[in-house]
């Protein structure tokens, strides 16, 4: 497939989306970010790079992913047609692989043989380890001790793929701390290491670069929807947002259309136990403007500037900030962001599974929940596209625990740990 990487009017020359974004990093990294930006711009214009990425998207990832009319879900909701963009079809099970392959190719192009990545649930770590294995790169993945405990299978997958998984015990031992540790590694080994950042966060050019690599999602929807609906833009697009990469991937190709032609773009934030409870990951609804991991964005932090640990049922949305471009979309009214709770996501996961035979990732279930509500609001003439960013395999054990089925979760963990010990030892 011939691939072109898009060019959008944002960010400005300083890596800003309005007041958001930027490069709040130790000075050590500034030359590396300059180098990355230059290499990315050159790659973007190089047919060889684009052809190779296009080939991998097609042959390795399995793109284009289907656009699927969820008829029974549509009937259940009783309103607009609900289409699912099936990123859960991608190799490794989520949208993350798009960005990992592209960045790993860029690393090869830049002559960097060592790549590092951060991961929460393990999706981005597995995708990075996969890309590294494919391209013969050394890979180190930073993962919080807490997440390692919860995601033993993904840890094993990464090791099987040849990656080194480094346990992070600082701070809250979760994704934000793994990101800190990856950045510290990069600061230390900046001359020979490429940092594969997993979302539309971090210092410029990462939010723009990751967006461009994920924009294939929205670009495909345009073509696919034209075929089935006779128009390239739906009435609304719904996607979950943690850092926000799957959402940007489907929003960006529509976000810069004139207001009359632009569909409603709706990001669903993880409201955990409710925005009022304080136990959530809804940076937009419950945060304030601040700086984390090199970027100005909406952020969960207290009035002294300390980062407040996020909470969500889905590890992939468990990030205290949200990408700067989303912040700018929100501030300029290009997109809306709504909170969806743990309980609502769990309900939507079961609903989609029962009605369509599709087990979505808990992350994506946040978007499904809102789409069902929105379908009623839009009525039968409307068309909604939901970005089904990942499949639910990784969450089945957690869902089982949450739904209090018989199987003892501790036993399951112990089994997995025993297997890992036997194989890795």
């Amino acid at each position, binding site marked *: 497939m011939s691939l072109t990487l898009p060019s959008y009017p944002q960010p400005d020359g300083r890596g800003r989306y309005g007041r958001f974004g930027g490069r709040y990093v130790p*000075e*050590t990294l500034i030359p590396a970010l300059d180098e990355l930006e230059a290499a990315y711009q050159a790659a973007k214009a190089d047919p060889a790079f684009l052809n190779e990425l296009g080939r991998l998207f097609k042959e390795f990832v399995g793109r284009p992913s289907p656009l699927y009319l969820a008829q029974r879900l549509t009937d259940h909701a009783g309103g607009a047609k609900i289409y699912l963009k099936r990123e859960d079809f991608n190799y490794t099970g989520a949208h993350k692989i798009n960005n990992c392959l592209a960045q790993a190719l860029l690393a090869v192009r830049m002559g960097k043989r060592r790549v590092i990545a951060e991961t929460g649930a393990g999706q981005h770590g597995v995708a990075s380890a996969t890309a590294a294995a494919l391209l013969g790169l050394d890979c180190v993945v930073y993962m919080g001790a807490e997440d390692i405990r919860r995601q033993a299978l993904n840890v094993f997958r990464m090791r099987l793929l040849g990656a080194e998984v480094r346990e992070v015990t600082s701070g809250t031992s979760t994704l934000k701390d793994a990101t800190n540790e990856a950045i510290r590694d990069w600061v230390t080994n900046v*001359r020979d290491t490429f940092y594969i950042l997993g979302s539309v966060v971090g210092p410029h050019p990462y939010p723009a670069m990751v967006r461009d690599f994920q924009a294939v999602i929205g670009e495909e929807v345009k073509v696919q929807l034209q075929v089935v609906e006779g128009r390239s833009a739906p009435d609304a697009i719904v996607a979950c947002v943690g850092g926000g990469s799957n959402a940007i991937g489907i929003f960006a190709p529509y976000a810069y259309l004139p207001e009359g032609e632009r569909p409603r773009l709706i990001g669903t934030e993880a409201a955990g136990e409710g925005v009022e409870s304080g136990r959530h990951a809804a940076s937009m609804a419950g945060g304030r403007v601040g700086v984390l991991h090199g970027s100005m964005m909406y952020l969960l932090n207290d009035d002294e500037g300390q980062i407040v640990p996020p909470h969500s049922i889905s590890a992939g949305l468990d990030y205290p900030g949200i990408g700067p471009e989303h912040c700018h979309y929100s501030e300029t009214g290009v997109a809306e962001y709504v909170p969806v709770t743990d309980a609502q996501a769990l309900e939507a996961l079961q609903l989609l599974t029962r009605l369509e035979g599709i087990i979505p990732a808990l992350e994506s279930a946040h978007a499904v929940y809102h789409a069902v509500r929105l379908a009623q609001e839009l009525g039968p003439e409307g068309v909604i596209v939901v970005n089904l960013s990942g499949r639910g395999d990784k969450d089945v054990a957690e869902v089982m625990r949450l739904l209090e089925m018989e199987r003892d979760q501790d036993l399951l963990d112990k089994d997995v740990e025993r297997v890992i010990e036997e194989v890795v030892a």
Partner: protein
Amino acid sequence: MTATLTRGAERIHAAFDRAKEEGRAAFMPFMTAGYPSAEEFPAVVDTLLAHADLLEVGIPYSDPLGDGPTVQRASEQALAGGTSTRRTLALVKDLRERHDTPIVVMTYVNPIYAVGPREFMRLCKDAGVDGLILPDLPPDQDLEIADLAAEHGLAVTFLIAPTSTPGRVRLVADACTGFLYAVSVTGVTGAREGSALGEVPAMLALAREHARVPVAVGFGVKDAATAHQVARVADGVVVGSAFINAVREGQDVGTLAASIAEGCRR
């Protein structure tokens, strides 16, 4: 941009000048505020100040990107003990009542935004802070912070690294009003095995071309020997993690400070 010299900058420059006249690089110990506890912190700092030309106090932060494990753990402990942004400035205010040594506050940028830049500077001025060190704020990212600092009589210090290009060094050096902070290695703070100061001379040479303020070196300076290595080329020597380690392991901080201060003699 040439800022008029603020009171904080004058006091910082004077401390460097005094050390130079005495044939020394200025010795600048660092300590995380509220470490090992808010109650014990003043005594630790009193000990350091007996040997210091300037003092650097770190605001504990939950996500200190530029710091290694030693400062991270100290920050976590200080935060757990209730020392955050405003409390740090209250602790500095208490120090000010007993000491005249210039005090610079090291802070990541998010606490400044959370408190509000103007309010933050007001609190600093009120506490008797002379300057700020901003490890995750390249000067071209926010011009307001430097201006507000100047308005409140505070100096600002930004960092350069061994990877910094001549263009970046010029930009950063121009923005510094207190001193220029040269990071000895590509990496984060922390005492290191052996000596990793090989990149310092070339970086210093570049810094001297552009800096109109004193140049201090930090990261990985941990004892008299490494301090002496740095003192030969730099105007100032910053030592942090070694003191935190000493406090944690119950060693005599005064003895270590005295020996490093001695190492700063040229």
